[in-house]
């Protein structure tokens, strides 16, 4: 069947012409429609979405995307915060960046996301990275953000898969972090003994020697904000309160 184009063309032509004839038989002049449309203002001719489409086409997708966003939000723990530089209290905005909790976030990745330049943590000269690594941090990160005039910026990083335990108590007024007692090995960053951190509002954090987790407090004077990264996957199961320590003293120990 249809061994050559001629036979196929003949048959197709016959069928298509018959189709066109039938279609043309029911065709009426479009002039009345055109004329009517010409006389209507342009706004009236603008296509409107029929009301019957309102629910399925507009509202349902909107609700669905809102629900999806809500679901993502509710299943996501806040793990990255960036605070304004303490010397710029006029801009106290806080930027929240959310990550899925199971995902480890490297400091580099977080910095990339936040659009900041980040010095290397590991392998950088100690003179540039005046930081200590100590064990323990906090599960009750409820210290209020208090602007500091120190002009220093601190990077706090909790290593992936590790938890934090910092005991918090209040004891008068002081710098944001006035002291951090204790010592760590500068080479390995391992915690040696119990340390305490006293914040400017008097909050003090004691870092327990036997805590199993590590937090890296890295001071970086050129950083324009304070980045606090509390990585997911640890024992912090509830969203931590918004503010934590915003700045540490230049000399941590």
């Amino acid at each position, binding site marked *: 069947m249809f061994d050559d184009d001629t036979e196929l063309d003949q048959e197709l032509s016959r069928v298509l012409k018959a189709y066109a004839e039938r279609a043309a038989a*029911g065709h009426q002049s479009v*002039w009345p429609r055109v004329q009517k449309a010409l006389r209507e203002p342009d706004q009236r001719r603008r296509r409107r979405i029929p009301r019957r489409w309102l629910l399925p086409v507009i509202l349902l997708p909107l609700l669905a995307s809102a629900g999806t966003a809500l679901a993502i939000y509710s299943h996501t723990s806040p793990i990255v915060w960036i605070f304004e530089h303490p010397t710029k209290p006029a801009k106290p905005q806080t930027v929240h960046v959310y990550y899925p909790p199971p995902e480890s976030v490297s400091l580099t990745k977080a910095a990339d996301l936040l659009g900041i330049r980040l010095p290397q943590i590991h392998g950088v000269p100690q003179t540039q990275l005046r930081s200590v690594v100590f064990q323990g941090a906090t599960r009750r990160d409820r210290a209020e953000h208090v602007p500091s005039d120190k002009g220093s910026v601190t990077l706090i990083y909790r290593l992936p898969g590790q938890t934090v335990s910092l005991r918090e108590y209040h004891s008068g007024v002081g710098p944001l972090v006035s002291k951090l007692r204790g010592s760590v090995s500068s080479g390995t960053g391992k915690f040696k003994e119990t340390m305490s951190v006293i914040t400017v509002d008097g909050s003090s954090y004691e870092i327990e020697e036997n805590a199993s987790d590590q937090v890296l407090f890295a001071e970086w004077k050129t950083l324009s904000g304070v980045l606090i990264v509390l990585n997911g996957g640890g024992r912090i199961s509830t969203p931590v309160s918004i503010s934590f320590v915003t700045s540490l003293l230049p000399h941590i120990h």
Partner: protein
Amino acid sequence: VTELEAVAAMCAGDERGFEELVGLFERRAFAVALAMTRDPALADDVVSEAFLRAFKYRGRLDPNLAFWPWLVRIVVNEAHTAIRRRARRERLTHVLIRVPHPREDPVEAAEENALGRWLLAAIRSLPAAEREAIQLRLMLDMDEKTIAHTLGCPVGTIKVRLHRGRKRLRARALRELDGFLPDSLSLGADRNV
């Protein structure tokens, strides 16, 4: 009123000149729109919109030139837009309310010859570019050069499309019809020529 007079009148904003042109070219425009869309109702919409656009952009038309070559490009563009919109709508309705698609075309269903119905369905299943070329060629008897001008592509492209479309149809016929031809599908059984 000649075509050129009507064009000049339309270009001057005269609605009566435009009406003349609608009367002169409406059926040809409908035939092209039908060949493009294979949907009489949609072809009507396409023609209306095309004429409206022609009137709206009449300032771009040279009154000394023929009206049809300019109009047919508008018709083709409108047809493409309408086809895209129809496909989008059908996909959406299929997803949202499970309406089967494509819906049956009553004009197509009126084809009494079973082979004719098979051919119409087979053409519909071709890729859009090949389907358009074949329909313009065989429904309107356009030559390849005219099709190329109408669709705005080189003649070689049209030749390729026609060739590929025919090849596809022959292959499908071989697969579905050859050796399994019920009487009702045979070429001479109930042909209405």
